[in-house]
């Protein structure tokens, strides 16, 4: 399963719900305002760090750059471009968008 989250974890609980319900071995892609969940130093970082034990976290590079956050991605989070986004969708048999 590929989970896609596009909301800031500091504004909505989409990422929190996603991480609660994502099964081991699934992937989580953070896009748009969701990219703030992949950034260092904030109060949500610990939850993402903990989740990385069971799921792979990806973040969309263009959305990081737009928001000035490209240089503060949590270690171990994979930055992908639009091509990588397509690859993730193609690699997984199903996907869930958390609105």
């Amino acid at each position, binding site marked *: 399963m590929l989970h896609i989250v596009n909301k*800031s974890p500091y504004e909505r609980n989409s990422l929190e719900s996603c991480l609660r319900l994502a099964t081991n071995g699934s992937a989580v892609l953070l896009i*748009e305002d969701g990219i*703030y969940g992949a950034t*260092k130093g*904030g*109060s949500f970082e610990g939850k993402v760090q903990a989740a990385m034990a069971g799921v792979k976290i990806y973040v969309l590079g263009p*959305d990081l750059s*737009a*928001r*000035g956050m490209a240089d503060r991605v949590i270690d171990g989070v994979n930055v992908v471009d639009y091509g990588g986004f397509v690859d993730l969708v193609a690699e997984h048999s199903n996907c869930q968008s958390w609105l």
Partner: protein
Amino acid sequence: MFTSSEDMDTDEGGVIKQFMFVNRKAPYGTIYALEGLEVVLISAAFEQDVSMAFIDDGVYELKKAQDTKAIEQKNFSPTYRALEGYDIEKLYVEKESLEARGLTEADLLVDVIVLDRAEMAAKMAEQDVLISF
């Protein structure tokens, strides 16, 4: 220090009110941040006592190094630096909102006044008009 409506001049009998624009949304994901900024610029024409407050995800609007080329949207962040030219110089940022997001004043692209939660609450309470984005 800060002016209040009582000690400001009135212009041809018109009362100058304190307007605060409250920004709580991150840029680009929704249209709120850009629309809020445009309304603030329009408000400058009415010669009111205008300030902006940045709380919650609104602090992300002021993050340095925004580069929107790859998402093909307009990077409107330099406009915050132009506000000074419209006499909009009171940009209040809540300290707790910065801290929760791992940001500091040095991460912001414009000079701001950092207020703690109690100071922000007081600043909001003294306004005549608050407009939220």
